[in-house]
């Protein structure tokens, strides 16, 4: 019997340079989706501090006594990393939303011929929105 050579997964992914618009869109959408789920879990975890807060638990923040929830949020928000991460989150969310809309149109069979253009449009718009919102996000961090 003849054997055959299976080039395996490594090679498949080694081909990323050759990917076309639709494939990049797919990869980005996947990535952003996963980031968003990850965030959803963290988000709820952080927000959960409102449970003890409602029970009256407090912490000391910059000398003042505040409830745990407010304390945690304010502490986090004052960190530059968190602010930067938030900008990233925005970018991720905006891309996921825009590309998600693009996918919804594709599902409805609308504009299939310009699917690559709408992907590039999503990318550019994401960039623009993210840049435009940086001031708002950074505000008060320093």
């Amino acid at each position, binding site marked *: 019997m003849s054997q055959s050579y299976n080039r395996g997964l490594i090679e498949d992914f080694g081909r990323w340079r050759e990917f076309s618009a639709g494939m990049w869109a797919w990869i980005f959408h*996947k990535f952003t*989706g*996963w980031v*968003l*789920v990850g965030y*959803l*879990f963290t988000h*709820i*975890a952080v*927000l*959960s501090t*409102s*449970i003890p*807060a*409602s029970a009256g638990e407090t912490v000391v923040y910059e000398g003042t006594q505040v*409830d745990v*929830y*407010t304390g945690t*949020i*304010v502490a986090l*928000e*004052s960190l530059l990393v968190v*602010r930067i991460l*938030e900008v990233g989150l*925005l970018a991720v*969310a905006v891309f996921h*939303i825009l590309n*998600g*809309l693009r*996918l*919804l149109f594709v*599902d409805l069979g609308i504009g299939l011929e310009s699917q690559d253009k709408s992907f590039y449009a999503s990318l550019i718009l994401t960039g623009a929105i993210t840049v435009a*919102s940086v001031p*708002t*996000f950074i*505000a*008060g*961090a320093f």
Partner: protein
Amino acid sequence: MAEHYSSFTKGGRLWLWQRITAAFLVVVLAFHFFLLHFVYHADEVTFALSQARMETLTYYSLMILFLFTATFHGVNGVYNALVNQGLTGTKRQAVKWTLVAASVVLLVQGVRTANAWAGFTTFF
């Protein structure tokens, strides 16, 4: 692959729900972001403010619905992505139930949080 499959519409239903929740999320997520980052800035968030919003029943229900749709959309998305990569058999069952369990934890914790603000103590 040659065998015939019985009608398996579950895939289709989940697929449709993924789109429906997506359409819903576009609106709610935009609203959420806008409210919490542009109307109220992130560093102004306090327990009291959240509490004030949550005490409105419409806002509370919207957030609960938001939580459920986002959880479904996100977790189903992750599950789908894994299935697309050829996840099958027992591994797949394991992943599925892990995801379900994680979702349940998330939902319970989320609802409890919302309740804490809204001042409901009845559910959990």
